[in-house]
């Protein structure tokens, strides 16, 4: 049981770090990469909380769809935050 708590702790700390990073980076493409890492770790956390259907939806939307749409948006606009 303590081992599961340790695992939850590591994953939740990484979620906070990547979320902070995706808000503060100047390069929007790097920000999108950090956001993809955050949704990936969030899917892992849902998985560890025994919700595989939520984890699958989060993986499909967070990793595939959101990253692709954000990249399309950056392609049409500016890459660097000013």
């Amino acid at each position: 049981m303590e081992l599961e708590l340790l695992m939850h702790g590591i994953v939740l700390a990484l979620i906070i770090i990547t979320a902070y990073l995706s808000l503060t980076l100047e390069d929007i493409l790097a920000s999108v990469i950090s956001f993809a890492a955050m949704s990936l770790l969030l899917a892992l956390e849902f998985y560890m909380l025994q919700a595989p259907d939520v984890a699958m939806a989060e993986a499909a939307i967070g990793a595939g769809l959101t990253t692709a749409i954000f990249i399309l948006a950056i392609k049409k606009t500016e890459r660097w935050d000013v």
Partner: protein
Amino acid sequence: MNIFLIAAILMAVFISIAILRIILGPTTPDRVVGLDTTNMMVIATMILLGAAYDSVILIDVAIVYAILAFVATLYISKYLEDEA
């Protein structure tokens, strides 16, 4: 004492090291490689946790994720190729 859970915690430590590359990485390709490494290690962690919880259904999530992680990396790489 579940041996698969110990292996999963070890993988979580390795994931933190790969996230460190996303945090530090001076250039964007560094961050893309860090994200791809994180993707693959999270898939491995999901399979290890599926073995730890002794459930077959949990493995399907890892299969779906293995396909989608590839697509996401491909999108970012195509963008970098167009820009160069």
